[in-house]
């Protein structure tokens, strides 16, 4: 299927133009490449910000209707501009560093967390020919670059000089490391069936969505993904009723906004990964691929939101139990079963 | 029922003054505050009486002295009630603590100390509970004076 604007084809043309522009201006050709890279990053950031805005609005509306209320209504039609108003508020708010904080670590932490989520975004296959960067080890890349996020959270928790933050940071580190294990192992089932780590190839190989072959893997992935993004019922790092706001208690303004962005970007990345690996990614009839991709991602995101507004929260040790005593063995079992079936067939 | 309770009380505490009826069961009035822990211990451990719940403990400033007022009930039968009173001197407001007998006495006594300045000897942690540490005076004493207190128009 061909579209009017196939960005994958658009970008080389743009890049040529930029290089030409650089030469014309008497700069080295390299400058054009750098400008092109900057443009891609900017585009991705815009995409990221836009996604998060839509997500936040959707979450508030869905939460509202789940809770017998209506959600934001005042700014714009049905409150659609509320998110923009909030963003402006967060950006123009004064940023300050608490006196007891470790200043530089405190300042860096939100960007570390955000970058980890953001980097994963560039390898997602949004459509057949709409992938910012096509990597043949895309799956490994995505799960690998997401991991340093926990360091940022630890940095935030440690440097804030607040005991709630510290406890939140520690909880978060323990939780994310624990859930990385079942998360990765649950993905391996898909990798074994498709025989590749290239996200494109994985999507291409799905005649029927892999959720049919890997229902358990999908379930484990989904639960681990919710835990990985620190969302309810696994939101113990920022457990509001216990730790006020956990690791970002002392953050405000734009730095808080980056944590916020990171949470939603992570959520988007993991949902997109679930859509790609288990639900057939951009494959689907009638509509363009990216519509299918977004629709499937949206469905998973809705699940995330649904969980958050209906479940109570686990306790830290119960959470660990769930990961190590239930999910991890189940994931291995799933892997074993998949392997056996593949060998026998 | 009420008569047997009063008889039992008379038998157990022959010297104490006993009022037959108040709004809260009979009242047992100790002659001095020093007796109070022993009286309460008997009341609590005696198998017949068994007043083991200290429902409320407070004090009243009668002008000449403080009166410590205890409202006790039976855990077996919540409707069996007893009021225990013990006088505390105004000049030297001291009385032995009950914190080792009743779990809640700890806080009740802190509150009485907070409001009346009655010192409970042997209390594990006697300090103000509702008012700030640096508060001057004891508000529920009748002679408490505070310039910031508003004079209400007469009622």
């Amino acid at each position, binding site marked *: 299927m061909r579209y009017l604007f196939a960005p994958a084809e658009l970008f080389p043309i743009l890049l040529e133009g930029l290089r030409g522009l650089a030469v014309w201006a008497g700069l080295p050709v390299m400058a054009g490449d750098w400008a092109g890279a900057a443009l891609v990053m900017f585009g991705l950031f815009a995409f990221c910000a836009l996604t998060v805005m839509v997500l936040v609005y959707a979450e508030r509306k869905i*939460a509202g209707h*789940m*809770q*017998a209320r209506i959600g934001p209504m005042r700014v714009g039609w049905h409150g659609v501009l509320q998110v923009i108003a909030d963003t402006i508020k967060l950006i123009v708010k004064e940023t300050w560093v608490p006196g007891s904080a470790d200043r530089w670590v405190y300042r860096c932490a939100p960007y570390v967390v955000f970058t980890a989520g953001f980097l994963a975004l560039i390898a997602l296959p949004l459509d057949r020919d709409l992938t910012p960067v096509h990597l043949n080890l895309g799956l490994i890349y995505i799960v690998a670059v997401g991991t340093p996020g926990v360091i940022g959270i630890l940095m935030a928790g440690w440097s804030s000089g607040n*005991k*709630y933050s510290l*406890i939140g940071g520690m*909880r978060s580190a323990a939780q994310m490391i624990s859930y990385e294990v079942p998360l990765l192992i649950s993905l391996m089932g898909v990798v074994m069936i498709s025989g590749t780590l290239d996200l494109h190839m994985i999507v291409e190989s799905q005649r029927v969505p892999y959720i049919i072959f890997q229902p358990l893997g999908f379930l484990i992935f989904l639960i681990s993904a919710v835990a990985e993004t620190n969302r*309810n*019922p696994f*939101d113990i790092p920022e*457990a*509001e*009723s*216990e*730790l*006020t706001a956990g690791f970002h208690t002392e953050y405000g303004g734009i730095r808080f906004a980056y944590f916020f962005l990171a949470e939603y970007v992570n959520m988007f990345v993991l949902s997109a990964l679930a859509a790609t690996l288990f639900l057939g990614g951009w494959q689907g009839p009638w509509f363009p691929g990216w519509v299918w991709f977004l629709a499937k991602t949206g469905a998973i995101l809705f699940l995330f939101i649904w969980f958050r*507004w*209906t*479940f*109570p*929260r*686990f*306790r*830290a*040790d*119960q959470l660990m139990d769930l990961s190590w005593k239930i999910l991890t063995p189940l994931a291995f079992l799933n892997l074993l079963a998949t392997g056996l079936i593949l060998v026998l067939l | 029922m009420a008569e047997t309770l009063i008889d039992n009380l008379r038998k157990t505490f022959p010297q104490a003054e006993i009022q037959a009826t*108040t*709004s*809260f069961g009979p009242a047992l009035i100790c002659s001095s505050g020093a007796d109070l822990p022993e009286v309460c211990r008997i009341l609590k451990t005696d198998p017949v009486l068994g007043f*083991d*719940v*200290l*429902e*409320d403990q*407070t004090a*009243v*400033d009668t002008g000449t002295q403080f009166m410590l*007022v205890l*409202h006790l009930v039976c*855990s077996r*039968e*919540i*409707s069996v009630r007893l*009021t225990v009173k013990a006088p505390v001197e105004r000049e030297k407001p001291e009385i032995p603590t009950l914190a080792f007998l*009743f*779990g*809640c006495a*700890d*806080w009740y006594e802190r*509150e009485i100390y907070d409001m009346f300045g009655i010192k409970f000897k042997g209390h594990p942690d006697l300090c*103000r*509970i*509702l*008012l*700030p540490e640096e508060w001057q005076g004891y*508000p*529920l004493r009748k002679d408490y004076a505070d310039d910031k207190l508003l004079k*209400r128009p007469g*009622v």
Partner: protein
Amino acid sequence: MRNLETDYPEALKTEEITLNMGPQHPSTHGALRLILRLDGERVVSARPDFGYVHRGLEKMAESLSYVQYIHITDRIDYLSSIMNEWSFCLAAEALAGIEVPRKAEYLRVLTAELCRISSHLVWLGAMGMDLGAFTPLTYTFREREMVLELFDLLCGQRMTFNYFRLGGVVRDLPPEFTKQTQAFIKYFERLPDIYDQLLSDNPIFLIRMRDIGHLSPATAHSHAVTGPNLRGSGVAQDLRRCEPYSVYPDFDFQVVTCQEGDALARYRVRVEEMRQSARIVAQVLEGLPEGEVRSKVPRVLKIPPGEAYVRVESSRGIQGFYLVSDGSVKPARCRIRVPSFANLSVLPQLVKGVKVADVVAILGSLDIIIPEIDR
């Protein structure tokens, strides 16, 4: 093999930290400060510190007449203000020897039970909130709003009702009140099932609530714990049944108990109590007698010298007033016995050795209310 803990004590040296929970904290339900000593996430000791909203209500009583003080009692436990008014009026009536007409007694029971429902609804929502479930709060507040609207209709107030007077209540039911209340009770009947779906059937909720904050009957008695907290430990003590005041003997209801004594038991008791209260309300509306709602009481009431301690079963336990009269128009001493004060005093024992997250759950399950403790 070497044991890390015994062979390398220096390597594993840990320190306790002190965590101040509150007075500004989302789950201390008001200005309560818990000073927690923590060993990692485990609580070593807890020390509640309160008094942040102390208003001197007992002192205030000494400068107000009995009638003027009724509306102050609303501020003691703002979620079940009717019970405060009731115990104060009972104490003053006992001192002055005032009779209350039968219809007024019915109206008192009616409002008190509605109040109990609304108070438990707030608690239920807050309990979910403490465990990280946001949605129950909005649901229970929706229903509580209906109760508040009934009260609005009845006495023009939503929170601080000032509905009771010495010798009765201030006015009769407005004409549409009975119908609306019946509609509410009918609607309310199926609600506990909805809450069950949201909370009590939820496995996460169950593992969070079960086997934490175990309160034994002996500890409960030692700390004079009353109300649903005590009944959650299997002690069937309810003043409405054990020492019936007003017209409670006329009504058929169960004293709800649960044997386990943990947070879940206290939760179950309260949810079931809402149903029982709804039953009482329905019976009151059915059997409402005709007659006066207020007996004749002189405008300037001089109460003979004496003292009275009268208590009622409030939403949180036994709530009582100890009034000492010196024969003037004002009480010489007014002592307020509040359930939350004693109920909170048991908290340091309950939270010893649990995780920080459980502190919140246990505190929530005790259903304390700060203005009542601070007075």
